[in-house]
């Protein structure tokens, strides 16, 4: 079994390389992804090895990147689009919602929209405005789309391949603050199916659910809570839409307490969905209402104060205390 240690950025790069090797119809498109290798170097070296026809440096324009990927999909190509930063996906929103999400249906299944839209998302890297957004709820809300997020190099390596070979359009959310953290990657077999939620830390008192950058925060909270005698079960969603509710339900039926963690603002979010759906599924098991630890309802703040916007270990523990306190 080949296990290699690498960063998430490298794992994505290797995963894309492997997906391209496996299927000659896989092409990459985006701004500055060729010669430069992308601003995060995720596509580093791929244009050199696969040529300009498969790793395409595009003119500037997200609507066009996605809009042409739709046409390529009609022609049998699987395009992995890179959106340079989360905040720049909105010019493409119309093509995503009106075409990408609906064309499989509108063509009665004749065309599959097997394309991937890669979004470096969430904050925590000290960037300027529009570079730290968490737009996943918009896509999760949209029928026809799927959304995933990776939180480890191993998941990144495998999930980008699974997403590329998947026949539905997938918004692939990469927690950019984790790009440079290393981890072991098993090159031989995938750790789980693409949309499976993964228990990252087993526990018994509170089910804590999140994805992307929040996974690290939750794990640190679990450590801190353990020191205080509270056992957190940390679940990494991986599949943000659809959500693997069976795994969540199992956990919640055990713990009876739920905390959801996300950087995105709270209203009508993935966190809202998790709380609403699990309340319905596990009503009799619930010992407290599910709580959401989220970004505030304000535009993403300047980076110097972003750590007071993003969920912190403290805020997670605070919510844990509150759900634990509900019975006393």
């Amino acid at each position, binding site marked *: 079994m080949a296990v290699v240690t690498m960063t998430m950025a490298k794992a994505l790069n290797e995963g894309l390389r492997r997906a391209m090797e496996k299927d000659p119809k896989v*092409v990459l498109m985006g701004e500055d992804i060729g010669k430069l290798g992308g601003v995060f170097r995720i596509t580093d070296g791929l244009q050199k090895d696969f040529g300009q*026809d498969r790793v395409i440096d*595009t*003119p500037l*324009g997200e*609507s*066009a990147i996605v*809009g*042409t*990927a*739709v*046409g*390529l*999909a*009609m*022609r*049998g*190509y699987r395009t992995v689009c890179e959106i340079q930063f989360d905040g720049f996906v909105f*010019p493409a929103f*119309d*093509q995503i919602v*009106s*075409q990408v999400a*609906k064309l*499989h*249906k*509108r*063509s*009665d*299944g*004749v*065309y*599959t*929209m*097997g394309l991937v839209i890669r979004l470096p998302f969430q904050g925590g890297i000290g960037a300027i405005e529009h570079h730290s957004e968490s737009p996943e709820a918009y896509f999760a809300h949209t*029928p*026809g789309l*799927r959304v995933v997020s990776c939180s480890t190099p191993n998941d990144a390596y495998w999930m980008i391949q699974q997403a590329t070979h*998947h*026949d*539905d359009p997938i918004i692939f959310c990469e927690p950019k603050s984790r790009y440079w953290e290393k981890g072991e990657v098993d090159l031989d077999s995938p750790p789980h199916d693409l949309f499976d939620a993964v228990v990252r830390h087993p526990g018994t008192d509170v089910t804590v659910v999140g994805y992307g950058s929040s996974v690290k925060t939750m794990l640190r909270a679990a450590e801190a809570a353990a020191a205080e005698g509270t056992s957190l079960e940390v679940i990494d969603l991986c599949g943000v839409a*659809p959500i693997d*509710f069976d795994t969540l339900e199992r956990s919640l039926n055990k713990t009876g307490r739920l905390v959801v963690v996300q950087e995105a603002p709270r209203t009508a979010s993935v966190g809202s969905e998790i709380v609403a759906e699990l309340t319905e599924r596990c009503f009799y098991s619930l010992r407290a209402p599910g709580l959401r630890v989220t970004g505030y309802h304000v535009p993403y703040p300047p980076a110097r104060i972003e750590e007071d916007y993003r969920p912190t270990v403290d805020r997670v523990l605070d919510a844990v205390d509150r759900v634990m306190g509900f019975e006393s």
Partner: protein
Amino acid sequence: MIDEELVQLLTPEGERVAHPHYASGLSDEQILSMYRDMVIVRRLCNEATSLQRQGQLALWAPLQGQEGAQIGAGRAMAPMDFSFPTYREHGVAWCRGVPPENLLRLFRAVSNGGWDPQKYRHHVPTIVLGNQVLNAVGYAMGIQRDGAEEAVLAFFGDGASSQGDVLESFVWASSFNTPVVFFCQNNQFGISTPSSIQSKVPLFRRARGFGFPGVRVDGNDLLACYEVTRTALDLARSGGGPTLIEAYTYRMGAHTTSDDPTRYRVDAEVEVWKLRDPVERIKALLVRECRTKPAVFAAVDAEAEAFSLKLRDDVLAMGRPDPRSMFDHAYAQAHPLIDEGRREMAELGIGGVAH
């Protein structure tokens, strides 16, 4: 209105005019066959309008006046070429072989598409203005990667020409030199909005500034539309890159059956354009030059009549879709919310036995 920049091979009276770059190479048979196309799609359009009036269609977007542009462009396509329509390219769909009753499924509100776009190499309608033009450029990028000798014909209107998606398409098509021909039917209105609000200069001129040629053609001149489109598609297929064709025409009818054009235009204008009717123009040519007999025209009319009767029957036979079909093809792979929706509908007893 008619200026020297306009490619014309036929006067409104059906007389041939010479053009320095374009000449019609169509045989009498071909012209007659395209005349037949025009008569049939016009008949189709009339039938659809009355079906809508009778409550059998939810909506109809008539093409009257644009038959020359659409049949000219549609017939200029090679079999392996691919077209991207809006919601009004019934004439093009006809040329591509889309069964007319399929064409009406959208308007009977039983489908959001209506036919197999791959089979006819004619995309299903795109209603969000401009979206399909980028999709067309992407499809053309696929042709390039496949090394195929094919071209794409992307339709849009004078209104849509203002949309960012259409304009970005120009950038991309030029940058990648894609085999795509942009076919803008300037029918002078986007619903009530005159095309002068979209552009103060003729639309075809826009192409130049994006690095590729633009041509304005008399959209009511079938022969000119055919030749200009064929030439542009040939160029595209042989690696010559994109062309923008502006077919200068006129929407004789309402925007759709929901529209009331008397609110924004005067009858006199419509009357003027009646004199430029693309169907009558070809008929005049056929009479004068090809000596087509009245019996032939009568036969075409009869065929169109029979066609429309069959169309009507086909439409009336279109039942309400099974509500459960809304779950089909929402996703290509299994999805829990689809399963759940199917289950819920079954429990509600909707749509017969659950599958």
